[in-house]
């Protein structure tokens, strides 16, 4: 039976992973994700799940150990943040190319320097093109739901790809929220046992991770791209099943009061809740604004985006990372590219906001809605803006 409990979201994430009965967990401490593996190690130490918990000596080894464990057919989980994710970087594209369904939670945090432990999305954006499924959570409930969905998606025979769930550092990892937890029987009904496609075992000898010459490398990359694109179908199916069983709906892009809206905000992660309040405020002031919350970052939901922005005049895309010297920030550039061929696309403005833990308030979003209204009248010269820079 579903239980409602107030819990720190990092702990809740660990409880959700435990409900999925992972076989191997390998992790290395780094703020702000640390409470996830810490609490999982508690769960293992108390014998609530039967798993091997490997206290590795680095993040590089955390993902390497997960890669090895997953290759034997074990259900595998890790978590990290920031520099830790960068240190995993070498192994990231290998896990996806080897089609190993490792699930990872990322407590998103800024990249150094200056060293900063607080939230933004520069860590995951640096790993955008590693071939992983990448999902962003809005709140604690989504973290728990997505963690359970994650194994089903990643391990699906038609997917077999690693998946990362992004939860904003501190804003989500360290916040206590009331969360609905399904019970073990419900999770068991939803999530089948992992049936690996190929495993390392002497009874069926095979070589994994072989050398690819130019003659086959392009084809291998094409296969990886197709696999990631095709995973969307399964993601949507799994979300549908989740909704049927648990009543909570998940979509690649969630729309809030977008019907007939002239101005749209687009956010990822925990900003979406704050932006929702700003939309309510704007509506009270008779400003025609709505909100899109992008949950599925990879594979990118191009069709859903095109449909979601139909009729809007201005789309303000929030980014929590900088693509230094680029044409726009990562999400802004992605969305411009995705909408480029659309005949009636909205004007797109790109606001970089909330870097390194800078608070993002309702007032900020109201201002951005105003900027969007302004932009419609006088087209801005800049392709993007770093919002709220002091002293300028």
């Amino acid at each position, binding site marked *: 039976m579903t239980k409602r409990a107030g819990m720190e979201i990092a702990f809740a994430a660990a409880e959700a992973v435990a409900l999925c009965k992972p*076989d*191997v967990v*390998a992790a290395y401490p780094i703020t702000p994700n640390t409470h996830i593996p810490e609490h999982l190690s508690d769960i293992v130490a108390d014998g609530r799940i*039967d*798993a*091997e918990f*490997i*206290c*590795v*000596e*680095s993040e*590089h*080894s*955390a993902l*390497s*150990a*997960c*890669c*090895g*464990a*997953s*290759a*034997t*057919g*074990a259900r*595998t989980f890790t978590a990290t943040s920031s520099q830790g994710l960068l240190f995993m970087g*070498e*192994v990231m594209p*290998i896990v996806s190319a*080897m089609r190993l369904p490792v699930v990872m939670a990322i407590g998103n945090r800024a990249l150094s320097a200056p060293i900063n432990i607080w939230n933004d999305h520069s860590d995951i954006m640096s790993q955008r093109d590693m071939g992983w499924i990448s999902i962003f959570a809005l709140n604690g409930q989504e973290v728990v739901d997505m963690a359970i969905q994650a194994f089903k998606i990643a391990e699906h025979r038609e997917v077999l790809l690693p998946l990362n769930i992004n939860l904003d550092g501190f804003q989500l990892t360290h916040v206590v929220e009331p969360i609905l937890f399904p019970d073990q029987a419900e999770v068991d009904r939803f999530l089948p046992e992992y049936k690996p496609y190929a*495993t*390392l*075992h*002497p*009874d*069926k*000898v*095979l*070589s*994994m*991770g*072989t*050398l*690819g*010459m130019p003659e*086959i490398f392009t084809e291998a990359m094409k296969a990886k791209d197709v696999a990631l694109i095709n995973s969307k179908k399964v993601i949507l199916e799994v979300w549908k099943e989740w909704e049927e069983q648990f009543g909570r709906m998940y979509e690649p892009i969630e729309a809030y009061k977008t019907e007939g809206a002239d101005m749209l905000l687009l956010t990822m992660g925990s900003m979406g809740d704050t932006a929702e309040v700003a939309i309510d405020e704007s509506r009270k002031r008779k400003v025609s604004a709505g909100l899109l919350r992008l949950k599925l970052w990879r594979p990118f939901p191009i069709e859903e985006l095109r449909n979601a922005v139909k009729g809007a005049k201005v789309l303000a895309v929030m980014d929590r990372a900088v693509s230094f010297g680029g044409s726009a920030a990562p999400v802004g550039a992605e969305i411009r590219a995705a909408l480029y061929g659309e005949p009636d696309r909205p004007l797109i403005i790109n606001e970089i906001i909330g870097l390194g833990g800078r608070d993002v308030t309702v007032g900020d979003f109201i201002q951005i809605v105003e900027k969007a209204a302004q932009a419609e009248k006088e087209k801005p010269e800049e392709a993007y803006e770093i919002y709220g820079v002091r002293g300028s």
Partner: protein
Amino acid sequence: MSIIVENFDLYAPRLVDKEEYFSAGHRACQGCGEALAIRLMCKALGKDTVIVNATGCMEVVSSLYPTTAWKLPWLHVAFPNAASVGSGVEAGLKVLRRKGRIADRDIKTVSIGGDGGTVDIGLQALSGAMERGHDLLYVCFDNEAYMNTGIQRSGATPFGASTTTEPAGSASFGKKAWKKNVAEIMVAHNVPYVATACHSYPLDFMNKVKKAVKVKGPSYIHCLSVCPTGWRLPPEQCIKAGRMAVQTGIFPLYEVEDGKYRMTIETRELRPVEEYLKLQGRFRHLSEDEKKVIQERVNQEYKKLMNKVECLPSWSDLKE
């Protein structure tokens, strides 16, 4: 010379498994000591083994898609992480066996890497895996430089050797630092079984592999692997060079079992290091003075080792 090696032809058919787990047709250079060592290691390991291979020569020559030389389950991930990937493989096999999802029998995880992947970029992962105590054998095939990328200097390159990144020249005699001794670093981890080995003493090497497999926990073998290409010597000199490394005391063969040192190939009188150095082009530039420095260092290191052999008791003897 060891008697076992002299009578190899006589004993080999009875002592060495006929089954090949590292098959012919791979793309290693002629006279590659490492390929030979791997072939011998696999025979000693037998079929219930999973191999985790660091990036390096052996991964490149043995796994050109869609072919593979491996008749054992084999996994290559990256350069620095054979030990950490091996940790995951070991943990995975252990938990799946415990949960009844794979057959209930011992399968040994064996991580292998070259000297670059072991003593340099992979040292942290190796140290972590050994410290955690996984049931994992790690074998370093040490050919004393980054041979796969073109003979660049590594932490295992010996003093005085000329490499493509620390070459000999009019102002340099090649490598200025001494070879890093990773076997001793593994001993310092209190690993229950540590050994040095060389393909030129095949039965000694295979016996060590068999011993290491029986250890329930971490074990480490450092196998000197002659690289004719990088050492600048004719392929047919591969075995001889390995023997000279041992017989000059440059690379003594020993094992450390629960802290107790034992020489496995006894060398009554060490040959002069000159006999080893002169075989190889990488030492061709060395002056007599530089060779003397090497000889003195080898003598000193050998005495240090002998001291350990004579003086250090096994852990069980220390319990009294």
